[in-house]
């Protein structure tokens, strides 16, 4: 089942996946075509063709890196957003819980501490201990 975040940014998620798939397609094409073409150019001794295919591979790799960079950037931005929303949700819950705990506690009075200090002082008194 899709979370609200997934529903909200479905276009961005699909775009990211699309860019990722396109990047890998470009890389596979370059890896399939270039070695064969370069080998043929080397065997024929055609330097112009060799330079052409090397520049073809270079620009293909550049397109691959660019597509990958865009796809990963979208995913990173979405992950940060998701993380921020979760953090906000957890903080809100914690604040509510802390408030509920504070409400259930008996109200603090000023005498409590005084009594405590008196009790503590009593223990220290000689004669009241193991007697």
């Amino acid at each position, binding site marked *: 089942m899709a979370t609200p975040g997934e529903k909200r940014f479905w276009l*961005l998620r699909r*775009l990211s996946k699309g860019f990722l798939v396109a990047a890998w397609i470009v890389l596979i094409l370059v890896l399939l075509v270039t070695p064969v073409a370069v080998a043929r150019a080397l065997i024929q001794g055609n330097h112009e063709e060799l330079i052409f295919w090397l520049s073809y591979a270079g620009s293909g790799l550049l397109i691959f890196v*660019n597509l990958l960079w*865009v796809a990963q*950037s*979208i995913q990173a*931005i979405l992950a940060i*957003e998701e993380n921020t929303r979760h953090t906000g949700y957890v903080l809100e819950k914690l604040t509510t819980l802390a408030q509920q705990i504070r409400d259930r506690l008996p109200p603090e009075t000023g005498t409590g501490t005084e009594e405590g200090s008196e009790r503590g002082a009593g223990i220290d008194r000689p004669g009241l201990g193991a007697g």
Partner: protein
Amino acid sequence: MSTDPPSETIPREEIESGRVLAAVAYLPALCFIGLIGAPENRYVGFHARQGFLLFLLEVVACIALAIYDASLGRIPLLGFLVGAVVRFVLGFGFLAATIYGVMKGATGEMARIPYLGDAIRKVPF
């Protein structure tokens, strides 16, 4: 004509709802997603227009470099060296501007990219 609202006039909810689209707007050619996804959100609109300007600049730089490669870039050694240095500087500059924009967009700030952000009023949408 688009306006450039100061950040304090935009409600916090509007900024919170548009943070992702504002950050994505700086990625190459993705500025239109913000304008299509949230056309009424002024925060997204600000960053999308700035992202559009950055994208436009990238396209212009690409065309200029292609023209350079076809003309002055053919000068042996010097042409290649100058082209490589210009490519590196431009690429690094665009990358820095993109990261800066994404960071500001994601954190809810209406920060202008230096030099580029002043031209935002000239964007026709």
